[in-house]
């Protein structure tokens, strides 16, 4: 299940930052500063992920969703909650 999340997150990250080498990215790296993603990119990424995984991402969570790890953790727990 987490593989699906990984795939979707990577896909949308690649869409907004096509030149970035995601293999070089550590799961703790701040996406904003490492990949130079602005708030509009982030917004587009959240819209894409949310639509594809059918998971709502409340705006108040945006602040903590700055790394691959935190995005993954949040999406996994939302998904479990939705399925549970």
């Amino acid at each position, binding site marked *: 299940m987490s593989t699906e999340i990984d795939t979707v997150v990577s896909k949308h990250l690649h869409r907004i930052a*096509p030149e970035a080498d995601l293999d070089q990215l550590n799961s703790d790296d701040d996406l*904003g500063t490492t990949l130079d993603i*602005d708030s509009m990119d982030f917004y*587009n990424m959240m*819209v894409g992920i949310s639509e594809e995984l059918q998971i*709502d991402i409340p705006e108040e969570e945006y602040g903590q969703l700055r790394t691959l790890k935190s995005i993954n953790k949040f999406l996994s727990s939302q998904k479990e909650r939705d399925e549970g």
Partner: protein
Amino acid sequence: MGKFTMPSLGSQMIEAKLIQWHVKPGDTVKKGDIIGEIDTEKGLIDIEVFEDGTITDLVAKEGEVIPVGSVMAVIGEEGEADKAEMKTTEASEKKMQKVREDDKQKSETKKSIAEKKELPSQRIKASPLARRVATDLNIDIRKVEGSGEAGTIHRKDVEEYARQRVADETFEKEADMAEHLSKVEKKSMRQSIAAAMSKSNKEIPHYYLETDIDMKATVKWLTNENKNRSVNERLLPPMLLIKAVANTLAEVPQLNGFWTDEAMHIEEGIHVGFAISLRQGGLVIPAILNADMKSLDEIRSDFVDMVTRAREGHLRSREMSSATVTITSLGERGADKVYGVIYPPQVALIGFGKITDRPRAVDGSIGIRPMLSTVLAGDHRATDGHTGSRFLEKLNNQLQQPETL
């Protein structure tokens, strides 16, 4: 018979390469249709036509580099290309007319309401309020399409018509605007920015006015509003800033327009250019057209659409050449404030820093408030500090009442 020429997308552009046509001779086109794609120093741009008609000739060939102002296509009046076929019997002519009418009906969108001038003056069903609003706005009520029962015209129909009329008029002006932008050598995007900014710095005597706007009310309103919105309908601060700037310019129009031929030309349409940086370097400044007349949600969808297309390289010629003012916003990770360089021939640029929590005296004590540094760069040939100061004051007022944006 009209000639479609290579549009100028800024004072630095002198030519562009035609990548492909989306139309062929004989095709009917409507004002605003995208008829082709060109490659410019600003990336790939979709080009639009500024008149209705039929393509009679495609002069420019795909792959050809065409100077600004050169004829690319010839557009005849609607149906002109069919003239030969019209010399047939009356019956078939009638048939063709019907076909054309059917086509017309099919493609009829709200946009074409303004063109229904040939409507006969039948008995018009309209509410008294609609008639009064039409009189006030100097609108011929016969041209308005009613949305009510049996085509009854309501106030909102008249207002929609008025809105469309302004948009149509702006469209025509923009077609002319490309003409008076001067030409300089075409180079890469970097050099095109360099040329524009050098010209600005050399010719425009900038003055800067700065104020800190307390964003507590705006941020609070935004947070609440977004709770009720799905992820893809949420509002971002720049959307509110665009709307607030547009509303303020409606009140202080002196900052909206161009300095050309040693004089200020105030523009009626408020087209807010928004600087978008590109990942590959450089920036583009497409405009949200008639931003003062759009709702916040219309601005939201225009903005998202525009940023996406800017980064994919599918901006439209009209968006690239029509900004009457520019906003630069550094976003949440940027610097605290920005002193911008005006994009000539515009006369003002509004720079927004990032919103940061800062101590602020509020009602006699110190509070922590989300503050937004706002810097107005004005062209001192066109306006004075007094006008700029009024602008910032009114902009602040707009942002203190986000619910009215």
